[in-house]
């Protein structure tokens, strides 16, 4: 589903590569934690998958698309296959819960009928069926992240990228969010989650890819956050 081959990413502002000959392959339906200290290259990793950036060297494949070689006009097609969740939720404050989810579907050209069918379904899935008409400011952090997940999942992406989705949440709420992501993973969606949260990684016992200074220093199939950390 995702394949990086000897990917190097250099930024003009730094002499050290943000990613240094990174090769990682993720199969369909896998759940992968991407860990490592700040500046280790996690964000760059995710940006390359989304084609927010192109690698300096090496190739990136996502869902059979050669990401770096993709012409600009076909980038939307890539992004329609990838769902994204962020630490800061990135909801539209002037739209309701269902409005936020509907917006993501409308802008990729889904018909009003399709939008009307999918939105309640996906809100049901994330456990917000009763709060469809609330605005983001009326929701707790955990609920807002659920809306973000609903929006990311509404178009049934092949891959869900989560960049510290629990970074702003307390441990209990984080646990709920992880259960939700697990449920989405069970539908066959590949999940790559960048995180700093030890307890989550340790309790889930999923594949762990650890980056440090732009290099893959560990790739374990049922890993923990780190020995002695």
């Amino acid at each position, binding site marked *: 589903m995702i394949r990086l081959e000897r990917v190097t990413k250099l930024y003009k502002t730094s002499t050290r590569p943000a990613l240094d000959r990174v090769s990682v392959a993720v199969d369909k339906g896998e759940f992968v934690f991407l860990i490592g200290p700040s500046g280790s290259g996690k964000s760059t990793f995710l940006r390359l998958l989304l084609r927010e950036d192109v690698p300096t060297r090496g190739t990136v494949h996502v869902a059979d698309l050669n990401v770096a070689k993709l012409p600009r006009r076909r980038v939307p097609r890539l992004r329609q296959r990838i769902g994204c969740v962020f630490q800061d939720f990135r909801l539209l404050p002037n739209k309701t819960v269902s409005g936020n989810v509907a917006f993501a579907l409308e802008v990729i050209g889904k018909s009003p009928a399709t939008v009307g069918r999918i939105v309640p379904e996906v809100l049901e899935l994330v456990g917000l069926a009763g709060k469809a008409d609330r605005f983001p400011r009326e929701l707790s952090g955990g609920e807002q992240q659920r809306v973000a997940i609903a*929006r990311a999942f509404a178009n049934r992406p092949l891959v869900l990228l989560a960049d510290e989705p629990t970074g702003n949440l307390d441990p209990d709420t984080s646990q709920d969010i992880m259960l939700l992501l697990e449920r989405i993973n069970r539908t066959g969606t590949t999940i790559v989650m960048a995180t700093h949260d030890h307890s989550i990684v340790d309790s889930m016992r999923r594949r762990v890819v650890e980056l440090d200074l732009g290099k893959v220093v560990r790739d374990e199939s049922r890993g923990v956050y780190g020995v002695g950390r």
Partner: protein
Amino acid sequence: MRSGFVVREVLTGLRRNVTMTVAMVLTTAISLGLVGTGLLAVRTIDRTEELYSDRVEVQVALTADVSAADTDCSQPICTGLRATLTGSPLVESVRFESQQQAYVRYKELFAGQSLAEVVRPQSLPATLRVKLADPEAGAQAVRQAMTDQVGVRNVIDQRDVVAKLFDFLGGVRNVMFALALVQAVAALLLISNTVQVSAFTRRTEVGVMRLVGATRWYTQLPFLIEAVVTGMIGALIASVGLLVGKFLFIDQLLSGIVSNGVVPPIEVADVVWVSPILMMIGAGIAAVTGYGTLRFYVRL
């Protein structure tokens, strides 16, 4: 492309930047109003030219002695001149106007004015009035053939008189276009600014759109349509302004010379003819500026 979505986005955008939008509409309106005035001047010039090309003659005025002696162009000097003129292929027809006829016409023209009282038939020359088949080359040829001939006092090309009027109208047109150009620069910058502000206020939406894989058209079209709509509203206001201006000012200003048939009047139809042109200019400039701004200044 879902039109419902785009319409909603455009309306939201226009409402959100209402002061900017109003400024942009007004600037565009003034700019296009000036362009419209210029176009009307051009049209009037064309019409006036048409009007005069039928009427304009070259007058060959005869000397006082010939004028007094010959009342029907039957004597050798006059018939000789007439034959020379009629022989030219550039001349359509030649008409003789005697002193007496000139006097009658003069009285009519200046009826009720003191000028009409002082003039005597003897003070007016008899003329050969030449209608030209080719106004450009003809006038030149007549002047060359007649100047310094025996019995010829002078040659008057009426176009020289009319040219002054054309110069004036042409000046009006040039001033209008120059002002319109300056205004257009202001309008252009405002459009560009409005699009940037609009894109900035909606950066979260646009960010989400990009993320979920909306195509360029979906992200940019609302901004473009917004610009085009304001441009067209500007053009509409400009057209209404021209119409109001026609009735309130231009009609009064020109009433004297229009009723004398010196210049043709500006009709409602003329303004109606100008409006769609203004619409196209307004929409076109807004679209091009909007597109350029999005392409070069806004990362969507």
